[in-house]
């Protein structure tokens, strides 16, 4: 009896320790980023840094408002494109898909998640950029292109999470709705999907995370102009692109400013998560 309780205790501690590792990781990341980024913000001036419209490292002008807006626009666009398609496809997989094509489809989507972003980037560069240029005009390296590509890139994440949460909804919900005379679609969209809401939201959050964080693909197709976004068909630079783009050559204050850009990105994601946590709370009540 005694050995049992010791085992219980040990495992409890192991589980707790594992949970603590996650918190430790965040704390460490915070400490290292802040220690390296905040001094630069101080030197540049927080307002000049966050609200400055000009980014000219050569002249020591560091304003990242264009990049902040760029990230917001591109992510929003990707969400607008990716989330509906992702959720609908998840619904298809969970509720429409015949058994015969389910396995290959599932495999295909898992495969999409594993394709490196460099490949997506090149695909975008060779296919989507010329397509946008020929169809809508402009140079093709634009917000629109980035939105489309990112929309596709977040699909596997959203589909995967949404599908599993849809499958977790008991079949009886669907049958109950159907027995009331609702169509297949109404049962799914009015009963099953709302029941899986929390899982769907998780999928969307992960999708947003991926869209904001995407670097290598965006950098190839977005144009990367460090000026205020001018329109859907004009280029844009995101926060991530800004970091990767110039980190290589940056030195001194420039480098610190780039790490500070990372800090901004970090705070940004923190804010989004807080908002979504609040929404989720509202949803569950």
């Amino acid at each position: 009896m005694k050995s049992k309780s010791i085992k219980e205790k040990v495992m409890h501690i192991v589980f707790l320790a594992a949970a603590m590792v996650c918190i430790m990781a965040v704390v460490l990341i915070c400490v290292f980023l802040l220690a390296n980024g905040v001094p630069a913000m101080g030197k540049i001036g927080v307002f000049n840094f966050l609200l400055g419209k000009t980014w000219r490292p050569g002249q020591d002008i560091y304003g990242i408002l264009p990049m902040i807006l760029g990230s917001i626009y591109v992510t929003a666009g990707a969400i607008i494109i990716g989330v509906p398609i992702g959720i609908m496809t998840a619904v298809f997989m969970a509720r429409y898909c015949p058994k015969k094509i389910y396995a290959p489809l599932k495999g295909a989507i898992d495969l999409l998640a594993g394709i490196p972003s460099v490949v997506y980037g090149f695909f975008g560069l060779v296919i989507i950029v010329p397509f946008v240029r020929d169809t809508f005009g402009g140079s093709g390296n634009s917000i629109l292109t980035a939105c489309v590509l990112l929309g596709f890139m977040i699909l596997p994440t959203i589909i995967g999470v949404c599908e599993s949460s849809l499958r977790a909804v008991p079949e009886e919900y669907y049958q109950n709705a159907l027995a009331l005379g609702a169509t297949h679609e109404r049962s799914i969209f009015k009963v099953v999907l709302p029941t899986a809401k929390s899982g769907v939201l998780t999928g969307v959050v992960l999708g947003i995370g991926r869209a904001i964080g995407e670097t290598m693909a965006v950098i190839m197709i977005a144009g990367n102009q460090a000026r205020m976004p001018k329109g859907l068909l004009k280029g844009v630079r995101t926060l991530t692109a800004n970091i990767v783009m110039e980190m290589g050559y940056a030195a001194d204050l420039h480098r610190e400013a780039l790490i500070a850009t990372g800090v901004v990105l970090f705070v940004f994601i923190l804010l989004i998560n807080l908002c979504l946590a609040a929404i989720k709370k509202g949803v569950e009540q």
Partner: protein
Amino acid sequence: MTNEFIKIKGSIRQRGFNLKKAAALSLICLMFFLSACKGGVSEFEETREITVISREDGSGTRGAFTELFGVYTNMEGHGKVDATTEEAIITNNTAVMLYCVSTNPYAIGYISLGSMSDVVKSANVDGVAASLENVKNGTYKASRPFYIVTTQSLSAPAKDFISFILSDGGQEVVESAGYVPALAGREYTPSVDSGKVVVGGSSSVTPVMEKLKEAYGAYNPGIDVEVQQSDSTTGVSSTLQGICDIGMSSRALTENEKHSGALAETIALDGIVIIVNSINPNDDFTSEQIKGIFLGETAYWDSLEK
């Protein structure tokens, strides 16, 4: 209305696809997509806007380019300031540069001579073609040096490797890789026969460094050389921190870096090629024209001063 629905829906049933028809449908869609993509522009319209493509601010290639073609303005308190048009597409990647230019008929950009590929057309500058020959004899004016960066405390194997790079044998490798040798007339004799050298830095210098490393293996097989591709700054700072023995840089050292004890040596010269799309009839620019384009003063192909 109903009939139309039935026609469209003919291929799909709720509980199961009619696989053959679905496949046929998707094939048609695919062909449509393909034709939409492949059927791009084949004729060059002079009235279209010029798509300017440049490297990122702070890139060695960009620095050299703006310096060589005078793409800068003088600003009080700052001296010369890079004035590349804000509308220029920025990339940190040679392949992206190549692809953008090769797929966009109205694009203009620049790359390192060693990376030149036949998917794009190289343009003459002031009537001189960009070639190894012309860089060497000085008629092609757009060229820049490649550096290796070291500190005072250099290990013996690293010293040996550097002496190989700067020897005739090493410089021959540089030339065969498509770059211009920096100097000539030194002999190489191995000084140590075992050890390890870590080289890291600029991705522009990496290809030539890899060739050097391979050639070096034939002369002195006992020494293991490791080449890390990252970028100039990482290369320099890694060298200063002792992570690398030798740094590679495609830009000159900053004052801070010099202050921290970094030493630079030129190992090769690289030409910068102006590239345009292969259907672009404009392939001979004057320096002034290029300056105008990259400053954003010349926005359309037909407003190019002939």
